[in-house]
């Protein structure tokens, strides 16, 4: 039996009920959000279940949405099922004041560096990570550069304003 997005949705709804939100399918990939304290439970369920078998962590990263109060940071997981060739994306949102999220390193060795990278650039504090320190930036850095409050260009330049990029004239959207 081939694994369809509808079936995955149904299984998730059975298991986690109302906690699963923002379920959508864009470009054929199922995407949903879960509360941040459930992230490991969701991954473990997707990993262990005999039919779902999402046992490969393709990618782990974060996105900063400065305007979503209380859930500014989204940690994004891409999981993959080798047998059925199905991808899946799920997100957990966390506030920027308390960025603690459980680590996935117990389940996936590959999460180790990807979480370090996410910490390095977004400041997501992965609880239980064996070696959570900066990986690409210098150790002395005190801020998290991929957050939207750090504009890339020289502030005196007007040709690089947001309005030149089809957005409102202020930093961040």
């Amino acid at each position: 039996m081939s694994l369809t997005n509808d079936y995955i949705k149904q299984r998730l709804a059975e298991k986690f009920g109302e906690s699963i939100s923002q379920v959508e399918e864009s470009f054929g990939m199922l995407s949903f959000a879960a509360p941040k304290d459930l992230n490991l439970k969701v991954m473990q369920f997707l990993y262990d279940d005999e039919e779902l078998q999402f046992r490969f962590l393709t990618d782990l990263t974060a996105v900063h949405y400065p305007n979503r109060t209380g859930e500014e940071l989204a940690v994004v997981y891409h999981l993959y099922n080798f047998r059925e060739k199905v991808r899946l994306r799920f997100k957990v949102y966390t506030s920027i004041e308390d960025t603690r999220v459980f680590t996935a390193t117990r389940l996936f060795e590959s999460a180790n560096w990807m979480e370090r990278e996410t910490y390095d650039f977004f400041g997501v504090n992965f609880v239980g990570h064996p070696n959570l320190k900066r990986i690409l930036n210098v150790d002395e850095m005190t801020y998290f550069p991929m957050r939207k409050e750090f504009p890339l260009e020289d502030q005196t330049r007007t040709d690089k304003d947001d309005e030149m990029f089809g957005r409102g004239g202020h930093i961040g959207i």
Partner: protein
Amino acid sequence: MSEQQHITLPEGSIERQTQTLNLGPTHPATHGVFQNILEIDGERIVSSESTVGYIHRAFEKIAERRPYYQITPLTDRLNYCSSPINNMGWHITVEKLLGIKTPKRVDYLRVIIMELARITDHLICNGVVGVDSGAFSGFLYLMKYRELAYEIYEEICGSRLTTNIGRVGGFERNFTPAAFEKIERFLKEYPAALKEFETLMNRNRIFMERTQGVGPISAERAINYGFTGPNLRAAGVDYDVRVAHPYSSYEDFDFNIPVGTTGDCYDRFLVRNGEMWESLSIIRQAMDKLKDLPSDVYHADVPAYYLPEKSAVYTKMEALIYHFKIIMGESDILPGELYNAVEGGNGELGFYLISDGGRSPYRLHFRRPCFIYYQAYAELIKGAMLSDAVICMSSLNLIAGELDA
């Protein structure tokens, strides 16, 4: 000896049983800028720690302030041994976001270039594995053909290493007859060189003893560590994005996926060699398929996104309008979120793109295969000899550009 004699020695002398060795960041054996701090007991590695980030260039941050067509040169510099694959992976991702359907001829031309890039990537890796195990000549046999492949890129896009080849929607110009001639020449001459290389290495006693059983990894561990590409296939998992999720009409081609069993350096070497043969066969098939297609199609008909030819911009009103719209960011890029992957030289090269409708991506994340599988290196070389660690590193094909992004 029954009892160890106690002698007071200055600190840092033979009291310590192990010693620390820095392999890198600028060491000829690392073939790139990254550091491995090895704790060695004589010649044997007790533990190691990898440090990366020496050439981090913040591409993901830069990409948030670049229009889509200006991100292509950033992708060049990820895995610079096979930059056309990165370029086209990016174009395919944007096309998927915009819903652009490319003509078959564009797909086949892309396949030719991507497979050529895969060959240049693998030949460097395998050549270097040879160099690190003491056989320099094989590397030189193959290097000659990388030069020819670069001439083909040059004929098509004007540059060699960091190619910036193609555009969203297709290619910037049609392939010239000279380009096709060079591809034919490559197809004719390269197999002989590859055969010679294989004769030199594959059943070479010394080479086999240097690589067999070195840096092995089981399929289960490889999956857990996020391996993809030739390194995963060497461990026996037949996962290839070209087959699992075909893009650019890969479903039209008939090819095999070579797999290994033990995931050691020798298997990785054989898998890469096998893939080069498959790539040659794919290019051959693509060249044959091109004969039945109109020879003047080299881009999709999407004037709102595909930059018009410069001469048309100066002479035609429509082209001028579209040129202006694309450059000034007036073309509507739809909001959307997608993950798209292509089979890069080292594995699954993924692009996680979030567009909010602006002229540049809201967020772009590169899934870089090197970065993910390099974390297994400490485990692969634990307990191995120092010289094996060097071969293991080159057979993983670590590219510093892809590690750091």
